[in-house]
Structures are given as structure tokens and as C-alpha cells.
């Protein structure tokens, strides 16, 4: 993919926002229970080496772990659905957070 950004003179320096800063701008209400899971842990452990769920998630929900089964910080989820499509093994269990919980956009 793309390499480091070009160093073109007279281009303003844009401060990079960390994913934490980004998620800090989002309003959530926590359902207290994960709406995401992996269906079969063995598939993550044995069949999958690339963590495509981790690569594709825009909210740092899916995180690579030593054992091969990603952990899931469901509280960060933006409910975009990308991981549902991204997992090449169809191994993502995905529901909407119950009764309107989860992300709530002010702008959208």
C-alpha cells in the first residue's frame, strides 16, 4: 500500500488524530454486553493468519492476540458492519446492540 507521505514544501502540517481522539468525539450508550463475537474460535486459531477483521475495522474494536483469537472491544464499535463482510471465513457473529444502544451520531 502507500508509502510514507511525500515531503512537499509549503504544505501545512496536519496533526494526526489518534484513534482514541477520534472515538472520543463519538457518543455511545453502552448496552453492557457485546453484540460482536467470533463464531468458532478454532477458525481464527487455525485457518486465519491475516487478521482481516483487525485490518478492516475503523474503530480499533478487533485486536490481534497471541493465541490467534482476536479480542473485541465492542464498546468502540461504530456499527458500520465492515468486519461482517471482511472476515474471509464468515466467522464474525454480528448483531445490533439492543434497544437503541451503541453509537449515536450528532451529525452523521
Amino acid at each position, binding site marked *: 500500500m502507500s*508509502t510514507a507521505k511525500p515531503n512537499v514544501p509549503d504544505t501545512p502540517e*496536519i496533526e494526526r488524530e489518534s484513534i482514541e481522539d477520534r472515538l472520543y468525539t463519538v457518543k455511545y450508550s453502552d448496552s453492557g454486553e457485546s453484540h460482536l463475537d467470533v463464531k468458532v474460535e478454532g477458525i481464527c486459531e487455525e485457518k486465519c493468519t491475516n487478521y482481516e477483521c483487525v485490518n478492516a475495522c475503523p474503530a480499533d474494536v478487533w485486536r490481534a492476540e497471541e493465541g490467534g483469537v482476536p479480542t473485541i472491544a465492542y464498546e468502540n464499535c461504530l456499527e*458500520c458492519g465492515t468486519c461482517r463482510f471482511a472476515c474471509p471465513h464468515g466467522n464474525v457473529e454480528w448483531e445490533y446492540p439492543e434497544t437503541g444502544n451503541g453509537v449515536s451520531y450528532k451529525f452523521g
Partner: protein
Amino acid sequence: MSETPNYDSEYDAIVVGAGLAGSTAALTMARDGLDVIMIERGPSPGTKNVFGGVLYTPRIRELTDFDDAPKERYVAKKTYSMLSEEGDETSMSIAPSSWREEPHNNSWMVLRADFDEWFAEQAVEAGAMLVTETTVTDLIKENGEVVGVETDRPDGELRAPMVVLAEGANSLVSEAAGLKDRDDRDNVAVSVKEVRKYDREKLEDRFHIDGDAGLAAHYFGDGACGDAVGGGFLYTNKRTVSIGVVYSIEDAAHDKKTPDEVLEEFKQHPAVAPLVRGGRMVEYSAHAIPEGGPDSMPELVHDGAVIVGDAAGLVLNSGVHLEGTNMAVESGYHAGRAVADALAQGRTDEAALASYETNLRDSYVVENLEHYGWFMDTAAEEKEFLFDDLPRALGRAGDAYFKMDNTPKDEHVSEAKSHILDATGGWLGAAKKAWKFRKMLS
């Protein structure tokens, strides 16, 4: 149909999702005298929705007093820019004076949290009922016919003769009920966006806009989102700017860079950085976009149910056009009318609802999807040329063509040509590529 199912409720139709397609269907049916209930999972309509974006309003204007709608700016100018990874920009800008006059080419920047709430309110004023914070979890079927929905509320079953599935890109209910398959990941894009707030005067100065006029800017090439099939966008609102990237989930899955990192890089590009510097990020968001074209449209009509909007895959991405709002509204409108006609005959079977599909096929919606159906496949095939070689070649050709040195312009022109021909693979390659992409502007 054997016997009439027990519909236990006072509603003629249940609409799943109060987005653009759902509210249009509800509005259309309620105006036709039907008892309609919209079920929306968000705390209010729009709170779960994200787009770029530009709302295209030809049908919405006919259905509502659009002048009262919460909107940001109309599109007075569109720009299309090719960005190379090295920092080059080659762009085109279109600003017909007619766009400044009513109805502004039916193209308005809006914010979905505001607009969708207002739009659902129009359906409610027409008589539809709205329940929020309620998620539909499955459909109830009897003898293969859809007869109602399950929700996540206690005693959450609700039955009605018709169900309109307007659940958007993540169509979990339609999938769970076996009415459609999940899209392949190369037919769906991930999009991330941030909304940045600026002083209004500063924003207008920066983008050379005034009054309600606004700018819609589109970016392509590996300076926009790496060598993925996709692009970047920037839209001016009243006091905020929406900036984001959209690219294929197929590419996102393989790229170690996450979508938020791709957006960060886009903002650093010398063509973009001066436009987004300063201000304050007030919201980060993400959403999926179905862009599989006509081949990934599911069956739209079922016994007791119809599928509309993004759930039906009705988004046009032709490279030049990104349109889903108008198609969502148009499909909700045709579906609402078909349901009203069928119920007037006391029917809910597929054959009685067929006019929805026929009317949609006769409208610009399916026509456009079919006309541009080739684009996403060709873009994927020609990824390296389109997103990598071409933006760089255009940058170099521009540099050569306008060069100030002590050689005659002839030499500059032939150098510029050679950059382009290198990228296309000679004259023959150029001709082949021109042929491949001929329909882009036709």
C-alpha cells in the same frame, strides 16, 4: 393463499428502518390511507446513519415542503481531482451558473442526524406511527409468507399484512429471513469520515463560497486512499466540513493500514492539507456502502415483503457519481405505491406487488445501475493503471507541458505525451483503455 394469517395488530404495514427509503415508503403509504408503523433502532431517526454527502432531492421535493428541511448548503461547485502518492494533483472543476438558482440541481449537502429526523417527522405528520430504540431481529413467516416481525422488546412480536425492509447496508433481517445473501466483500465499501468545525467566515473564505453555496470535492488515485479501489471526498456544510475516504472492503481486509489511518494519510496530501487544517474534529463516523451494481440486487419482492434502498443494493458508484439517497427515496416511493395498490385488492402476494419491481426497472434507478454496472469491475481490473499510474502520469505530464526552461514547447509536449503513453502502454494501450472506459462520460 390458503387462509388469512392472524395479523393481531392494527397496522397494514410495518417498515423496518426509518432512514431515507423507510420514511419515504411510510409517507407514501400513510398518504394513501394505510396504517403504517416504522420501527427504528436508533434513539431517533438519523442517529445511526452516516453518508458523505449530497442528498439528491428530485422526488423528496415532490413529496415534502423541502424548503423547511434542515439542510446545509447546495452544491454550487463540484471538483474531481487525481492525486498521486508523490503529491501531484490534477483536477477539473464544474460550476454551472444554473446550479446557483432554485432548485439548485436538486443537490444539497445535509447532515443525516438532522435531516432523517425531519423526514421521518413528515411521515408521522401524514399519519404513520414511529417507534424508536427498537431493533427488528427477524421476520415471522407462515407458509413461506412474511406476516410480521420479531423485535428486541418484551412481547416484541408484531404482525401485519406487509413488511417493508428498509434496513440499509447491513441488512441483517433480510439475510436472517433468507430473502437475500450477504454481499461479497468486493461488492461493499468501508467508509470513514470526520466532521470538522470551523468559524463560518473562515470556512467560506477558504472554499470561496458564500450564502448557501457549497463545494463537493472528489478525489481519486493513490494519493487519496492508497492503491485501493476507492477515493476521498470533502463536502462543505454551513459551519463544518465533512471529509472522508471510501474504499473496497476487499482492499481494506488486505491492507495493514486501518481505515482511520488511510483517512489520516489522505488529509496529509498537499492538495488536501490546506483545506482541512485547523478547526476541530467534532465527530468521527463509519458506514458500509453496497456497491455491487445490478448483479448484486436481491429479489425485491416476496410474499408479504418488499426490500428497498441500500438493503436492496441500490447505490450507484460510477467513479463520477456516488448516488444512493435518490435511489433509496425512489425505491421507497415505488414500493409504497405498490403495497397500497396490492392491499387495496386485499392481496399481499408477490404477483400483486410486482409493480414495485417493474416501476423501479422502468425508472432511472435500475437503468443507471445497469448502465454503469461495468464500472466497479473495470476499476478493479485496471486498479494499478487508474489509481497508481494515471495520477502520477498526469502530474508528470502537467509538469512537462508547462515547463519553463530554454527548450521549445514542442519538446515539452512530446515529453508530456510520453508520460501519458508510458502509463497507458503506448498508443495501442491508450486506445484500448479509452475503449474500456468509454461509457464513463456517456
